[in-house]
């Protein structure tokens, strides 16, 4: 019985969108927790990471645990980093924070330090926070506590060509999760390579920010339409696909209507997918079971 899964602490792209109409799917900017045994692993630190940070406080304060937390960054757009100064474990010297990205550590530091700048926050810099912060440059796949973590560049659009953005694949005990965010799944070599990268994943997390009509006005901006995401999902053969990075304007009812509309499209019938919901656990084991049940 496997133990790999994910929990979304934020599913909203670009800017926080909390309101009663987004209660179900969520309004925090993205942060995905990889669940594997008792490890603490996050991909990106949008504002959603502050909520898991708050939950970890009981372990730090009452149980006096020394936490080691691993954070992997896909890229450094505000919505994917802005929660870090509000992630409470960072205020404690008992915390060790390992930060990973596929670029030079100076680049990572530069992009995270701005969040702690004294003009924008009551802090000074990332490295003057109480936690022990270790920056790592990823180079090839990483073996970490029984997980194998690999990465691949995504297509972040022609409007934003100067920064790389990466997909991650996590494998453990024969199970796998691939996360593809801020990727524009149009017909390109990069997309083909990504589909190969994600092929055979049990869980696929994929950017699905736009409807088809919206995408026509947003070509080249680095996000996928739901149809493009589902076409990728079909090609990878994932047992469960979770669409995320919901557009700020998208209400719960809109996502539900979109889900119904996609299921009416014949080529998407065999694709098992959901729009990702905040604070819900999606386990590989359960996805496998549902998939086998047909």
């Amino acid at each position, binding site marked *: 019985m496997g133990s790999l899964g994910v929990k979304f602490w934020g599913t909203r792209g670009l800017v926080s969108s909390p309101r009663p109409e987004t209660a179900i799917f969520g309004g925090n900017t993205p942060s995905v927790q990889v669940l594997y045994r008792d490890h603490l692993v996050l991909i990106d630190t949008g504002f959603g990471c502050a909520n898991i940070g708050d939950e970890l406080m009981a372990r730090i304060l009452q149980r006096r645990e020394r936490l080691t937390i691993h954070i992997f960054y896909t890229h450094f757009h505000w919505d994917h980093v802005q929660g870090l100064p509000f992630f409470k474990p960072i205020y404690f010297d008992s915390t060790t924070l390992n930060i990973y990205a596929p670029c030079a550590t100076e680049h990572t530091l530069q992009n995270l330090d701005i969040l702690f700048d004294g003009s924008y926050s*009551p802090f000074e810099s990332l490295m003057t926070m109480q936690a022990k912060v270790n920056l790592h440059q990823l180079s090839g796949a990483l073996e970490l506590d029984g997980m194998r973590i690999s990465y691949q560049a995504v297509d972040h659009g022609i409007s934003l060509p*100067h920064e790389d953005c990466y997909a991650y694949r996590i494998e453990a005990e024969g199970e796998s999760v691939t996360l593809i965010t801020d990727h524009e799944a149009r017909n390109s070599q990069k997309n083909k390579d990504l589909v190969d990268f994600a092929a055979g994943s049990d869980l696929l997390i994929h950017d699905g920010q736009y409807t088809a009509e919206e995408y026509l006005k947003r070509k080249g901006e680095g996000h996928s339409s739901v149809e493009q995401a589902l076409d990728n999902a079909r090609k990878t053969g994932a047992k469960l696909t979770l669409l995320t990075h919901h557009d700020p304007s998208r209400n719960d009812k809109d996502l539900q209507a979109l889900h119904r509309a996609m299921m009416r499209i014949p080529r998407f019938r065999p694709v098992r997918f959901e729009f990702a919901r905040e604070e819900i656990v999606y386990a590989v084991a359960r996805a496998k079971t549902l998939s086998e049940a047909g």
Partner: protein
Amino acid sequence: MSMKLRLLGVRGSRPTHKRHLLGYGGNSTSFELVLDDEKFHLFIDGGSGLAARGHALGESPKKSRFHVLVTHTHWDHILGFPFFQPLYNPKNSISFYASNTTRSTFKELFFGLQRRGNLPVPVGRLKAKVAFNSVGPGEPFTLENKVKVDTFQLNHQGVTLAYRLTYGNDSCAIVTDNAPIERGNYLGEGMREAAAGREEEFEKEFNEGLVRFLAGAHTVVFDTHFREANLKPDWGHSTPARALAFCRDAGVSRLILSHHAPEDSDEQVDDKLQSVFHDACHGGIEVEAAREGDLWDLSA
């Protein structure tokens, strides 16, 4: 001739989403002053609450003038600006009013939000005519000969300004963010120097100054992030009891408790309100808890 106050975002520190707090709202600080002139737009701060409002405004092709007062440049008060749709309409003019600090001008920090590699929307789409006006504490100014703006430096990092707005008989003051000034807790730029050797006098001056500042307002929105029990003065925020004390001394008609802590559920905000309700009634002040979407009259 009337001015009303709309609450676009009432959450402090950071925007947040959790089902138990959506009643009062999770968007971070932003306010709108609504005048009977529909071409005149006035906002205070650009927390995430401004992004949602901008979405509604942005669709409109009408040429409009926007004024945005900025209290200070902490993330929760400015992160919504890049998503404010009117900035992308070439027909619009948008004027920002903010203080500069010794570290930085507001203009530098505003464009800092658009850093390549950090801005999630394509840079260069900002098409409106944007102007930056430097304002200081105790330096009043008027917007389009309509709204008079008075300013006061608050006890918070940088040069954080309270704004008092007056339009005819309608007035309000926005006091966010502000910490108790007792026992050497001087957070604002220049305060430590001004207080040196005369702390007691300085603190008295500050408190009396704030009361005088509030006395001109019908409605006051005040930072009430903490309760007395969990107050951390050096974090830069205040409590309902202290907000009420200032408003009572100033003779204000209505106090709106705002800057709700991101950890606070709707129930906890209810409790916060109840904790000062009785005393407020005694003092003849109407007290409310800020709720996203509320629209308030600003006259008797």
